[in-house]
């Protein structure tokens, strides 16, 4: 069975290149080229150029740099301070008190940003020092931040769902909408966990001495108003079908600039830094995407994904066994690779197998994203851990240990959407446009 050796050879080559420090995009290109050159007679160079050109000029992919830019602008604005000040008065009476600011702050920021690292950085730079100063337990601060920030991937807009949508030719708007309820479910799980933990550890959560008046609460609401409007504008217009994700992203950029100008944080330097930051990140992701597009085509030529699909299909695994096996596989991959790379490798190689097994491609996108969320908080490579380490100087293993309960909660969320797939599919089915 020569294909099996071929597949094995390419897999080893891929991991050798990646471990050797070659950039991810180049590793994908080299493996694609090797697969085609060694095992087919197709014209390598022209397939490469044509595929990459076709993959790189796309209307729906244009949402990517725009949403990244929007996050960059908001990161540099006063949004995180306003969110802290706005949320705090409402949460002081809940068991767990201001720890919930981490969760809800991340959820709100996730709804205007597509990146979990950016979410962790934006919320964390405000909440970590504030909560520490008030004497909250460190592990709960770090864990809830690391865990909740992963929502940046799932709650739309989401960079990784754009990548998945472009790579699998799914509607990005539908993927975004599919991410909403699972996101809410996870927020609920996180809040329930923090509440339960606080009941079990009375005295661990410091008292808030200041009594918050109704006026203070209302003032908090006005601080939350702009971001709420931004969220409703972006997600609402996509859900109702008025705007495509690209349209919504462009309007989101303009609104964020307006918001930033209104709060007095928009200046020439901030504007340029934000734009250049977005250029860099979207260039990096686009390059990985075109590398993956070529790898997908090259894999198609070699026939490996089809073989894999037949092989797995022949084993007659149940739905749940297959998903469990995939979850383990993704978590292991996620320990060493970033989320985007995990997703593009998935879509290039195992997508035919997933479809063969009768798994809904839209649902599978949300499934993969939640697994990637788990990967964000597992050492040694977990980008939320890196960000929080950068903010606090605390060792990533300690942060990972603090985030472990949230890792398990994500796992629970994964089980819930597997048992009740409607959580994912019901909103896209009802959606307009």
């Amino acid at each position, binding site marked *: 069975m020569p294909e099996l050796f071929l597949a094995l050879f390419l897999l080893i080559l891929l991991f050798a290149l990646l471990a050797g420090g070659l950039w991810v995009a180049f590793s994908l290109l080299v493996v694609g080229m090797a697969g085609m050159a060694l095992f087919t007679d197709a014209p390598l160079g022209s397939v490469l150029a044509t595929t990459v050109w076709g993959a790189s000029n796309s209307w729906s992919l244009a949402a990517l740099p725009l949403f990244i830019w929007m996050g960059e602008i908001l990161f540099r604005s006063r949004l995180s301070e306003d969110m802290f000040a706005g949320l705090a008065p409402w949460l002081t009476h809940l068991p767990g008190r201001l720890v919930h600011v981490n969760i809800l702050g991340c959820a709100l920021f996730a709804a205007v940003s597509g990146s979990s690292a950016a979410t962790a950085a934006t919320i964390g730079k405000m909440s970590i020092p504030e909560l520490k100063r008030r004497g909250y337990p460190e592990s709960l601060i770090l864990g809830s931040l690391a865990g909740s920030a992963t929502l940046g991937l799932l709650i739309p807009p989401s960079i990784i769902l754009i990548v998945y949508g472009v790579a699998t030719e799914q509607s990005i708007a539908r993927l975004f909408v599919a991410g909403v309820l699972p996101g809410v479910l996870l927020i609920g799980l996180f809040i329930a966990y923090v509440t339960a933990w606080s009941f079990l550890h009375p005295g661990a959560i410091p008292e808030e001495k200041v009594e918050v008046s109704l006026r203070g609460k209302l003032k908090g609401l006005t601080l939350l108003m702009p971001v709420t409007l931004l969220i409703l504008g972006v997600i609402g217009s996509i859900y109702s079908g008025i705007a495509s994700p690209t349209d919504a992203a462009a309007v989101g950029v303009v609104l964020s600039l307006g918001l930033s100008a209104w709060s007095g944080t928009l200046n020439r330097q901030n504007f340029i830094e934000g734009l250049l930051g977005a250029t860099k990140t979207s260039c990096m992701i686009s390059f990985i995407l075109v590398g993956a597009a070529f790898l997908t085509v090259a894999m198609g030529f070699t026939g490996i994904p089809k073989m894999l699909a037949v092989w797995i299909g022949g084993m007659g695994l149940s739905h749940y066994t297959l998903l469990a096996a995939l979850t383990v596989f993704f978590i292991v991959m996620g320990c060493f690779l970033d989320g985007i790379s995990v997703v593009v490798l998935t879509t290039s190689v195992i997508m035919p197998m997933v479809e063969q097994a009768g798994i809904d491609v839209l649902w599978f996108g949300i499934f993969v994203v939640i697994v990637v969320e788990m990967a964000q908080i597992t050492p040694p490579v977990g980008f939320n851990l890196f960000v929080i380490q950068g*903010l606090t100087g605390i060792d990533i293993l300690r942060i990972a240990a603090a985030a472990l309960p949230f890792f398990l909660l994500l796992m629970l969320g994964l089980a819930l959407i597997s048992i009740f797939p409607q959580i994912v599919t019901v909103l896209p089915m009802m959606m307009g446009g």
Partner: protein
Amino acid sequence: MRKFLNGLYTLGGWLGAGCIAAICLLVVSQVGLNLIDRIATVTTGHAIGMTIPSYADFTGFLLAAGAFLSLAWTLRQGGHIRVSLVTSHLPNWLQSWVDIWCLAVASAVTAYFTWYTALLVLESWHYHDLSAGMIAVPLWIPQFFMFFGLLILTVALIDDFVLSVTGHLPVSSRKAGTEDVTGNEEGI
């Protein structure tokens, strides 16, 4: 020479940023026109039908141009993702060999890629390939930016390769591994 090359990379980065800003402007203008159309439909009963012709095509072209033109600059900024888990634990002398190896492979791949992209551009030019939209753009024009971006990347990689062979730390490895708190380059 050094000044010229650095200028070239930076120019690419700025042009890439310009493309993203232009995408935003283009799409927002179109959304604005749609809005005016909707208001017109509600008030007068019929739409004016204002669209920027082929705006989706132009958005795609700007996107491709932006991504490719900024490749070299992003490389110099340490923006492209790589796995440093293994290599960062190697002794210094071995790390410089890793740099040489990575830059050699990447230079070769990019040079090959650039060559075939040049052929693609020539072919589009030769056969007068046009985009399918209302405004038929000769495809070689947007494709040329892809070629040009890749060319700058080839130059930047060879530039860095020479640096690493002559015993210096390549620019593309200088910022790698330093975690940027803004969440810019790492993790999505």
